[in-house]
Structure formats: C-alpha cells, structure tokens
C-alpha cells in the first residue's frame, strides 16, 4: 500500500525525472544552450541533496526501506548508485557543453535524454522487482539509442543508432525470457520472494534455474558489454557523438552491473548450482578480459580503443562479481562497488580528454594525440593520469581498485582467475601506454596551443582531483562503499 513517507524514498528518482522534464521545457521555450545546461546543473542539486540526505541521516540506512509494496528499496547500495549516476550526469553536462554545440543536432534534447536515461539508471539500482527492473532498463536504454544517432554529420552515427536499437531489443528479449523463467519457477516477480523460493523449493541441480541465470547474464551482458555479447560496443562507441559514447561507457555499464548484482544477490540466484554458475561466469570473465585487452592493443581509433578497454574493464568487474556470489562475502561486493566508482571517474576523465581533443581538432585517432602535452599541457596531464589509472599503474586509484577485486577473488579460491586477470592487466599497459607515449614522447603535429573550454577543463579537473583523492584516501572510500556491500550480503542470508 501507499504511504506518504514513500515519497521521500522516491525523492531522488522523482526529482531527477522532474528535472529532465524541466530541462526539456526550458530548452523548448528559451532555446539557449547555456540556460538549459545551467538549469540542468543547478537542478541536479535537488536529487543529489535528497540522496545525500538519505545517506547521511544517522541510522536511516541501517535497515533497508521498502516503498510501493516493496517495489522500491532504499538501502546503502541503492543510494550509492544514485549518487554515482547523479555525479556522472553533472560531469557529462560540463564535459559535453562545447562539443554538443558544435557537432550534435537537437542539442537540448541531448541533455533531456541524458537526464531521462540517468533516471532509469537510478531506478535500476533501487528496484527490487523484475518488471520494474525491466522497465527501468528500457528507460535507461531508449534515450541512449537516440543519443547514438544525434551526430550532425555522418551516416556512421545513424548506423550506430540503428545497430544499438536492434541489438538492444534483442538483449531485452533475452533478459525478459530469463525473467519469465524465473517468474514461472518461483511464482513471484519480487526479488525477496524469489530468494525465499531459491534454496527451499528450488534445489541444486535444477536446470531451469540455471537456464534462467544464463539468460539473465546474457541480457545484462549486452548492457555491460561482456564477451560474447560485446560486438555492438566498438561500432556504436565509434559512431556516436563522443559525449554520448562517454555516457554509454559509464552510465549504461554501471547501471547494468547495478541491476545484475541486485538480481543475483537479492534474488539469491547464487545459492543454487554454484559450481556451474562459477564456471559460466569465469569463462565469460576470462573471454571478456582477454578479448577486450588483445583487440584494444591493435586499435588506431581512440573511441574504438576505449570501447575495447571498457569491455576489458567489465571483465575485471565480473571477476569481483564472481567473488561476491561465490563467497556471499561482503569483501567481494565492496570491491566491486569501489571498482565501479573508480572506473566511472577515470573513464569520465579519459573521455573528457578525448572530447576536448575532438572538440579542438576533430581528431579521434591515436596519432592525433601526438605531442599533445606541448599543445595542451593540463589537458594531457589529466588524460594521462586517467589512462594510467585505467591501466592500473601502482600508485593510482585504478591499481588500488584492482588489488581489492583480485584479493577478494583470491580469497574465494579463484586464484587461477586472478592469474589470468593479472596477465591481462599487463597486456592493457600496452595500449594505455601508447596513448600516454603519443602525448608525451612524440613530436607534436602542429606548433600551436589548444584552448580547452571551461566546461571541459572543469570536468577534467574534477575527475582528476577525485582520482587523486581516492588514490590517497582509498580506505576512506572503502568505508563508504563497505556498508552498501555489507547490507547486500546481509540480505542474502
């Protein structure tokens, strides 16, 4: 039943949806991009305020709150992802400002769509019911399909959009099939109810639940671009407007993982057929890491490279995901959440650099990065830091987050998987290093000074600063992500 207090629990998502509508109306009647973006940025304070208020109220998140008959669940996990998505939008609004004005048609719609997509992503982290998860997934995805096609010039963008729609529809169908099987087996769409059925009514050796697991993994596998469901990523990343690509690589991926982890942990799917499930996820993780890293090493287009890099990163996250369902251990989960947070920040930073370069020169190849350190020193420094962090060079946050994930997996007896992941990390140095080398050790293409617009410089500065803070205060951040993970582990028991 409905209680007025439920509205407070819904407030971050609801205010985000209202903000999206408001931005749409502002764009419609004012038609000035600066005003639209300002309204968006200032308006983000409201959902962020609600989410932070929920996070910092003492004792509020000690027990999960359920609203709207258990459809919405507000726990540290949900609030963590809500805040992450709001911050992603904030950084993206800054980073995309000048690029959108130059290269994107329907510039106002671009922001509206991004906000709607983020609303869906927030719901994906905070719903506890299969149908709502599916609808939130579509709310996240459909704006992304349109964003992929918004580039002003080029058939590639239209091609990317069409590919994205078709493959997205297919992945949704597969996911729905998995959900339908789950519903047929348990008689409920509520994840808590499913968790009750799994382990009592459904025992080890039940093939149908394994098929449901695989279908759900495949459906979300498209969202997180895990091999063998990754083939859309490079084409779509390359064809789409660069800010849209950046948004796909962080928001869509984080949302996919948020929902995947929620379904598997809250739905208790890891409790039966654990051996088969471990093998399946391990194979997917190994294939994802290895293919992503090996193919990234031979790319010449930076956006394609980042696509394969994000595929490889999804592989590392899957290692942590496997550790958390294998062990029902909070360490696995807090490592995953920490890794996702660091991945989001570094990827946003790296993409801010790529957007800045594309914005200033129109170049998207690795060659275009040559000597960038002399043409735009601050931009290069930020981008290089993010690239090194993505590669996992020791003092950086990316290194710390990888260590957490790998130790969690090692603790669950997945040492062979960790060894393969470490080998992959070594391979990834090659291509991240190539970009850094091009920026710092190659002769510049032109002897000029590139100007970076204020929005882009601030997004690079923000992400780099966040990266440095996390690097030196990893334990502090882990304390923040820890409760979110602990709670999920508690829900499973």
């Amino acid at each position, binding site marked *: 039943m*409905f209680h007025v207090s439920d509205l407070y629990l819904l407030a971050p998502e609801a205010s985000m949806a209202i903000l999206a*509508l408001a931005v*749409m*109306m502002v764009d*419609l*009647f004012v038609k000035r991009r600066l005003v639209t973006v300002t309204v968006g940025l200032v308006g983000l304070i409201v959902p962020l305020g609600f989410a932070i208020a929920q996070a910092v109220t003492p004792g509020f998140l000690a027990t999960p709150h359920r609203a709207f008959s258990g459809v919405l669940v507000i726990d540290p996990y949900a609030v963590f992802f809500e805040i992450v998505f709001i911050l992603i939008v904030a950084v993206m609004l800054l980073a995309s400002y000048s690029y959108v004005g130059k290269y994107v048609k329907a510039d106002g719609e671009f922001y509206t769509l991004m906000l709607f997509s983020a609303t869906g992503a927030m719901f994906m982290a905070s719903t506890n019911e299969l149908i709502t998860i599916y609808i939130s997934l579509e709310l996240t995805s459909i704006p992304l399909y349109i964003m992929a096609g918004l580039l002003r010039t080029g058939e590639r963008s239209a091609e990317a959009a069409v590919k994205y729609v078709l493959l997205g529809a297919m992945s949704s169908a597969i996911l729905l099939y998995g959900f339908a099987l789950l519903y047929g087996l348990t008689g409920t769409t509520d994840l808590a109810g499913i968790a009750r059925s799994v382990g009592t009514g459904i025992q080890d050796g039940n093939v149908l639940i394994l098929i449901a697991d695989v279908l759900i993994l495949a459906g979300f596998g498209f969202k997180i671009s895990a091999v063998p469901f990754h083939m859309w990523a490079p084409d779509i990343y390359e064809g789409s407007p660069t800010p849209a690509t950046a948004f796909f690589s962080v928001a869509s991926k984080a949302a996919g993982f948020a929902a995947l982890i929620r379904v598997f942990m809250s739905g208790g799917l890891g409790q039966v057929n654990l051996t088969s499930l471990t093998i399946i996820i391990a194979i997917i993780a190994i294939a994802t890491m290895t293919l992503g890293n090996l193919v990234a090493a031979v790319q010449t287009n930076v956006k394609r490279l980042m696509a394969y890099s994000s595929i490889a990163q999804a592989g590392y996250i899957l290692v942590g995901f496997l550790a958390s369902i294998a062990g029902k251990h909070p360490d696995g989960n807090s490592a995953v959440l920490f890794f996702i947070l660091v991945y989001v920040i570094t990827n946003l930073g790296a993409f801010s650099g790529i957007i800045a370069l594309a914005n200033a020169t129109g170049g998207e190849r690795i060659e275009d990065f040559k000597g960038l350190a002399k043409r735009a020193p601050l931009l290069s420094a930020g981008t290089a830091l993010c690239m090194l962090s993505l590669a996992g060079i020791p003092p950086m946050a990316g290194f710390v987050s990888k260590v957490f994930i790998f130790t969690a997996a090692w603790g669950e007896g997945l040492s062979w998987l960790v060894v393969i992941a470490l080998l992959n990390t070594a391979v990834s140095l090659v291509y991240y290093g190539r970009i850094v080398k091009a920026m710092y050790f190659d002769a510049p293409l032109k002897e000029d000074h590139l100007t970076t617009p204020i929005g882009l410089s601030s997004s690079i500065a923000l992400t780099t600063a966040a990266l440095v803070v996390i690097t030196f205060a990893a334990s502090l951040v882990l304390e923040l992500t820890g409760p979110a993970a602990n709670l999920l582990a508690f829900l499973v028991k």
Partner: protein
Amino acid sequence: MINPAYLYAGILLAAGFIFVIVTMTLVSFLSPHKRTKEKLQTYESGETPIGSAWVQYPLGFYIFALLFVAFDVDIVFIISWAVVFKKLSFFGFFEILIFITVLALGLAYAWRKGVIRWI
C-alpha cells in the same frame, strides 16, 4: 513411454499440413484461369480503386502516428483508472494527474517543435 496424446497431436498436425497441400495443389490444377481486367485490380472492399497502390506518403506522417499512439495509450489508462476511481480516490486522482501531465508535456513538445502543423 511417450504420452499417446502427443502422438494424436502429431498425427493431427501432419494431417493438417497434408490437407492444405493436397487441396491447394488440386485447386491449382482444376480451377479455370481467366484473368480479366477486373479480376487483376487491387481489392478495395468492392470499391473501384483510385490511382496506384504505390502512393508515396509524406515521411513526416510517422509523427502523427506517434502522437496518435500517445493519445491511444492515454485513453487505455484513463478508462481503466475510471473503472476503479472510487476505490483509489485521491491517490488515484494524483497518479492520473501525473500521468496526464507527462503526456501533455510530450504534446507541448511536439506542438512547439511544429510537428502538428498541417503539411
């Protein structure tokens, strides 16, 4: 041991296919083929067709179709809401208000973008 019901269903399925194939083949052999001009016309529910069937419609027409779907969905939800209105009372009233507002904003968007101007 296979349930005999499957066997019967299988026989029925095969019989269905065979019946259709046999009758259609027979018809094509037995029926007379006299192609008159009237017979080759496009079937328009008995009316005499005007012009070719390959007429080009304006591409922008899909937007009208989209708007129509918006209103269609509107009606589907409002009717089902009206049926249980008494039970839901104020909660339902505000719910449908939010729903209509969102749709109205969509319409405002389309209007402002000039898509419902007569082509």
